[in-house]
């Protein structure tokens, strides 16, 4: 039984419960913040008539985009048949669902009338990509549940590949839908572009994989279960490619806008003199969120170190949040052009850059989206057998054997297997 | 063209009322009936827009129906409008002014408090009578 991976629930440990309670508290704080905003109305937030989607949307969109990307790891195993990724698949599906739930919770709690959620479930306008997304999101959760079932129950194991394939296609469509929320906004130069959808897909790959690596390492290492260097290096390199991919799409989008005279002013704002948005883009997304992680992921000296890879993944997540912030808030801060060629002014802030500063309740609600997602993950791995007992290289893939025969962490568990 | 409608619509109403009354009668003590707190008196000398048992049971559906007609089709005959309910059902407080929906004396609140329903209508709609248009044309014929 040497090279058979077994799946176990997570053991009781003070550490686990401490983290669990932390997420619980953060989620509760988020709910409290949402209640506060709901009770008073949105005037207690930084949002205004000019910036109507604020920080909660940044977190919600990030989480929903990352949710679809978190399924990557599973897809690579089941759809593309890469054996080393197979034992990683159950957590991948769980994380995808959890992130989606966290994101949707934030989105719904930030509605002007969250009490009318029933209306959103019963009244549909099928010309609206939002309405389609309601189906895409709930459908994705159903597909994920089916997928998890086929992976955890031996009796239906045979179906896991086709269901995994459906999941793969579904999440591509889902992220196309999320990107199109912005891509279809004909009246705003910052968004109105077909590239929004593929750009969001590229971002989903990178954000989702980063969060996956973080979760996987935290759970495995935190529970003293071995993880192979080679496996981590592989995933790091894959994430590096995804990061490059999203950087590429973002670059093409900006270049296209710079080329057109109509959108040049917009680009000058975002890339040169947009203050916080410019800094978040160059320092946050490009340098810290893309370049530094890529170096960490591709350099052989760092891509085997769990802490360096984790650092890189954290940077990808923070950089991603920065980029979504620039897209959503920066895109609204730029004045809408009603009269090209005219300088405009009005009591309604026509022609002037909109002011926005996040308020505490917004930030707390946003963070609680992560907390809720991780709470779901923690619950999942506690009650169901999502996590392999070991991801030591020789176990995961026979090819790794020659290259690296030492797997770090959890020596006890490894000794047991050997 | 109105003539034709004029003949049929009372007939249709009558049939509808009978059918609905029967249906209502068949439903064992539904909404409203068993809830009979001290409902404030309406304006004297007039009757409600429909018989009281019908009103108790069906005012929510009537209002919803009227709401959709007004919003989407611009049909503004006043009879069943929410605005007009207030014309007859406004209640005066101790200070002699009409009470708003914040007060539990408000006509619409007396039963709802007992029935534990909390419709949000008056977060937008005015809960007191009135409603002269603010902007009046000085030259009516313009």
């Amino acid at each position, binding site marked *: 039984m040497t090279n058979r991976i077994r799946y176990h629930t997570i053991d009781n440990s003070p550490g686990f419960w401490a983290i669990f309670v932390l997420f619980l508290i953060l989620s509760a704080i988020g709910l409290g913040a949402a209640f506060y905003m709901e009770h008073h109305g*949105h005037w207690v937030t930084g949002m205004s008539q000019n910036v109507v989607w604020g920080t909660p949307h940044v977190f919600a969109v990030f989480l929903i985009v990352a949710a679809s990307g978190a399924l990557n790891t599973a897809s690579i195993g089941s759809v593309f048949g890469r054996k080393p990724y197979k034992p990683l698949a159950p957590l991948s599906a769980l994380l995808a669902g959890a992130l989606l739930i966290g994101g949707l919770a934030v989105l719904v709690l930030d509605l*002007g009338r969250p009490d009318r959620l029933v209306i959103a479930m019963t009244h549909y306008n099928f010309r609206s990509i939002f309405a389609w997304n309601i189906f895409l999101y709930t459908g994705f959760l159903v597909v994920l549940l089916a997928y998890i079932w086929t992976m955890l129950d031996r009796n239906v194991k045979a179906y896991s590949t086709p269901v995994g394939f459906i999941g793969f296609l579904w999440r591509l469509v889902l992220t196309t839908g999320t990107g199109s929320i912005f891509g279809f906004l004909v009246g705003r130069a910052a968004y109105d572009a077909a590239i929004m959808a593929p750009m969001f897909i590229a971002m989903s790959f990178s954000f989702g994989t980063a969060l996956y690596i973080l979760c996987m390492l935290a759970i495995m290492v935190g529970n003293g279960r071995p993880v192979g260097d080679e496996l981590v290096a592989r995933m790091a390199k894959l994430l590096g490619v995804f990061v490059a991919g999203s950087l590429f799409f973002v670059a093409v989008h900006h270049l296209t806008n710079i080329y057109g005279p109509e959108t040049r002013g917009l680009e000058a704002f975002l890339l040169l003199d947009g203050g916080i948005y410019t800094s978040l883009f160059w320092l946050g997304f490009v340098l810290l969120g893309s370049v530094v992680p890529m170096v960490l992921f591709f350099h052989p000296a760092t891509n085997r170190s769990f802490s360096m890879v984790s650092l890189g993944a954290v940077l990808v997540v923070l950089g991603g949040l920065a980029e979504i912030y620039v897209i959503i808030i920066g895109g609204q801060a730029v004045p809408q052009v009603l009269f090209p060629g005219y300088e405009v002014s009005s009591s309604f802030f026509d022609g002037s850059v909109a002011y926005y500063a996040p308020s505490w309740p917004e930030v707390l609600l946003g963070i609680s989206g992560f907390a809720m997602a991780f709470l779901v993950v923690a619950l999942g791995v506690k009650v169901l057998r999502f996590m392999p007992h070991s991801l030591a290289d020789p176990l995961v893939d026979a090819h790794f054997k020659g290259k690296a025969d030492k797997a770090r962490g959890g020596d006890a568990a490894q000794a047991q297997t050997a | 063209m109105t003539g034709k409608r004029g003949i049929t619509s009372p007939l*249709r109403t009558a049939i509808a009322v009978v059918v609905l009354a029967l249906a209502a009668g068949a439903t064992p003590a539904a909404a409203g009936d068993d809830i009979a707190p001290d409902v404030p008196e309406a304006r004297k000398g007039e009757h409600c827009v429909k018989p009281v048992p019908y009103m108790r049971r069906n005012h929510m559906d009537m209002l919803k129906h009227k709401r959709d007609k007004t919003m989407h089709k*611009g049909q503004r005959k006043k009879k069943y409008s929410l605005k007009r309910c207030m014309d007859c059902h406004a209640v005066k407080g101790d200070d002699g002014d009409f009470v708003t929906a914040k007060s539990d004396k408000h006509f619409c609140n007396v039963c709802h408090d007992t029935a534990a329903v909390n419709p949000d209508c008056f977060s*937008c709609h005015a809960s007191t009578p009135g409603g002269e248009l603010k902007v009046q044309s000085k030259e009516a014929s313009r």
Partner: protein
Amino acid sequence: MTEAPHNDTPALADEARRRFLKRAGLTAGFSLFAGSALAAGLPKALDEATSSERRWGILVDAGKCPEGCTACVDACFEEMGIEGPRVGDNHSRPDQDSQWIRKVSLKNEDTGHALALPVMCQHCTYPPCVDVCPTGASFKRADGIVLVDRHVCIGCRYCIMACPYKARCFVHEAIHDQEPYMPRGKGTAEGCTMCVHRIDHGMKPACVVACHEEGAGAMTFGDTNDPESAIAGKLRDNTTSAIRADLGTEPGIRYMGI
């Protein structure tokens, strides 16, 4: 149920119009009732459903609209009970207050030519806000007026994102003492209704009335489908345009002199 929706066939409505015009022309006493209704285009019985026979619109002559005059804006706020930006008696910051209509000052970047004009919901024939609304709360009436059915609005604000004219607002706080004919409430989207509550009673929108009586008479309201109407005549005889005409939204609000 007594007020069963009455379906106009085009022929019927046409006939009604001809008959009405004839009668109105013949009977002097009739004008007492018809006065405002006539001026507003076609009369609609209170209980008649709106139909696409009519297409309400406003023509703004920017050449006549003086910088600094805010008669239309004041009238709108007055009529609709929009206190915030005028009185500042609420919690919201100025950039959180609703403004259903605003005066925009323009200056041509090359020539320096300056002008001013009011901007409100443009009541598009192809309204982006209606397309994006997930619940169908944003909708267009048969007669071209774009509204928010605030009974099914969930406050997602996607319509505000989608509007090319910055004309939709979001209500940031609880509102009190609303005008009985104009309900408004926290957490929902709102915007210019072209004064449907007046139009359905055969009156002109508040902004247009005020523009004529206190302002410079730069606004013309009417049924652009009715060739006899003043607005249709002006549209026929002048070069007019729409804001962001390139988007193809085909607004019901048209401008002269931009």
